[in-house]
């Protein structure tokens, strides 16, 4: 696990997103929102990006699909490369073919009057022929499990359904990377669970790289291959989930360390050593049973 230091890229060909010493200041802001971020995200990973509010997670996501600098303006230094394209040199719509962004509030990213029309929006913009479009819309609705909603107006759906529609909208454009910026913060736990399952399926079945900005680590972390923790515009922790969650630093920053991992730490402080670091409650209970049987 690497703490704080920029990562040396081991295998350049696998990286789908790479930033190098990225510094960004919003126009009109005095302080930089990102202060030298260097991360590498490999193709096919599920990455959890977390950190306290205002740490620059959302800003970083906007850099990945070109909203920064093309929509927000401001001052950008360093380098962002997404799927082989330099973000600064590309238009947002060109990047939209590679990177899909799902936002926090499901209500404000759906604007058509029927679900299928909304899902088709991106394809219409890209001038995909109609037969192809119908196929891709149906496919996206099926992958997200909302075929039966196709003719309903989006604003009459529940938050969880809306968020799945938003995912379908992005999915229909068949991106290489899907970024979800706190997709569950407006949802109840059951809805959130469902979203994570859909995301996981997309990753496993289609090999789409997932970047998930999330606070609810209890639910999300079991799906993660890679965790990046940010604080005050910098990457402070970057590595595989167990190592990151178990580090003292993660807890001090205020990351919502999964309860299973926290339990492991408390037990260790009190002298009980489990044989591994659990991330989910299932893992924790297994390790606990082991200890109980041993004693």
């Amino acid at each position, binding site marked *: 696990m690497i703490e704080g230091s920029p990562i040396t890229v081991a295998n350049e060909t696998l990286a789908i997103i790479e930033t190098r010493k990225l510094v960004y200041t919003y126009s009109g802001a005095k302080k930089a929102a990102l202060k030298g971020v260097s991360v590498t995200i490999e193709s096919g990973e599920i990455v959890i990006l977390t950190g306290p509010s205002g740490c620059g997670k959302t800003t970083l996501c906007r850099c990945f699909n070109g909203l920064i600098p093309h929509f927000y303006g401001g001052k950008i230094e360093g380098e962002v490369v997404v799927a082989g394209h330099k973000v600064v040199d590309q238009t947002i*719509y060109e990047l939209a073919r590679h990177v899909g962004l799902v*936002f926090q509030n499901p*209500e404000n990213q759906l604007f058509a*009057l029927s679900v299928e029309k909304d899902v088709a929006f991106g*394809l219409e913009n890209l001038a995909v022929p109609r037969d192809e479009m119908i196929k891709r819309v149906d496919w996206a609705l099926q992958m997200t499990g909302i075929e039966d909603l196709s003719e309903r107006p989006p604003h009459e759906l529940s938050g969880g359904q809306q968020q799945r529609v938003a995912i379908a909208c*992005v999915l229909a454009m068949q991106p290489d990377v899907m970024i979800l910026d706190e997709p569950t913060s407006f949802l109840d736990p059951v809805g959130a669970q469902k979203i994570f399952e859909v995301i996981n399926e997309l990753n496993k079945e289609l090999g789409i790289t997932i970047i998930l900005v999330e606070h609810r680590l209890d639910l999300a972390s079991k799906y993660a291959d890679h965790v990046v923790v940010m604080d005050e515009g910098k990457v402070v922790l970057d590595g595989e989930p167990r190592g990151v969650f178990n580090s003292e630093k993660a807890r001090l920053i205020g990351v919502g360390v999964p309860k299973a991992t926290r339990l492991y730490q408390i037990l260790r402080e009190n002298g009980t050593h489990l044989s591994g670091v659990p991330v989910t409650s299932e893992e924790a209970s297994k390790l606990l049973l082991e200890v109980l049987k041993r004693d």
Partner: protein
Amino acid sequence: MSMFEGFRFRRVSSVVHLLDPRAKFFFVCVLFITAILNSKLPPLILLFFVPLPFVLMAGVQREWIRSMRGALFFAFIIFLFNFLFTYLYTEYPQVPSAPLLERSIAMTLRFLVLVESFSVFFLTTSPDHLGLALEQSHIPYEFCFAFTTAVRFVPVLAEEAQTIMDAQKARGLELERGNFLKRVRNYIPILIPLIVGAIRRSLELAEAMESRAWGASEKRTNLYVLKLKRNDYLLVLISVLMLILAVYVWLYIPIPSLTILLSF
């Protein structure tokens, strides 16, 4: 919020709902022209009944009656003005007589026919369809998009206004107190958060649109395509015949007024 109920299109499908909006719009325009060409009462009474079968077929009687009731106030004003001003300001001052009364009623009815035909159109055309029709009539997509988005966000904003009102009332804001000016001023603490919220919402919306390749190509494709079907051609045919008849009658056949008809 009953005030915004009218904007919420109910998804029903009937023969009338399924008609192509362009055909329906053409029919409404023909009704409009026919109503303008006629100033006598008998044909206007006839015209008033023309859209009624459509109302019944679409099953929107209740909404239709509500919209007509809304027009009643204006209809009354039109009647009053016609009656008073023809009485007072014509060259040969007429005494309040049957022909004068009939003329005023005819003018009022003309207005009601216009309201009626447009309300049938809007009650049976989904905003989706309307947007699509605009798009296919070569109106720039930006405008069509603005239109459908506005329709889509009316209920959302209405809900938000309600939330803000509740929140401000909970903090002790009294909306129904004071004279007229004071009451208007009372609404400022509702309007400001509503506007700020709407601006923020539009920014998020713009972000979402940009992320989904807005403006990627000059020539967009479209998931739905409107196509004229048999019923649409039928409606267009009816409208054309009606228009021809109306113009012919207007040019060559003087229509007697009801008072003359009755005096025979």
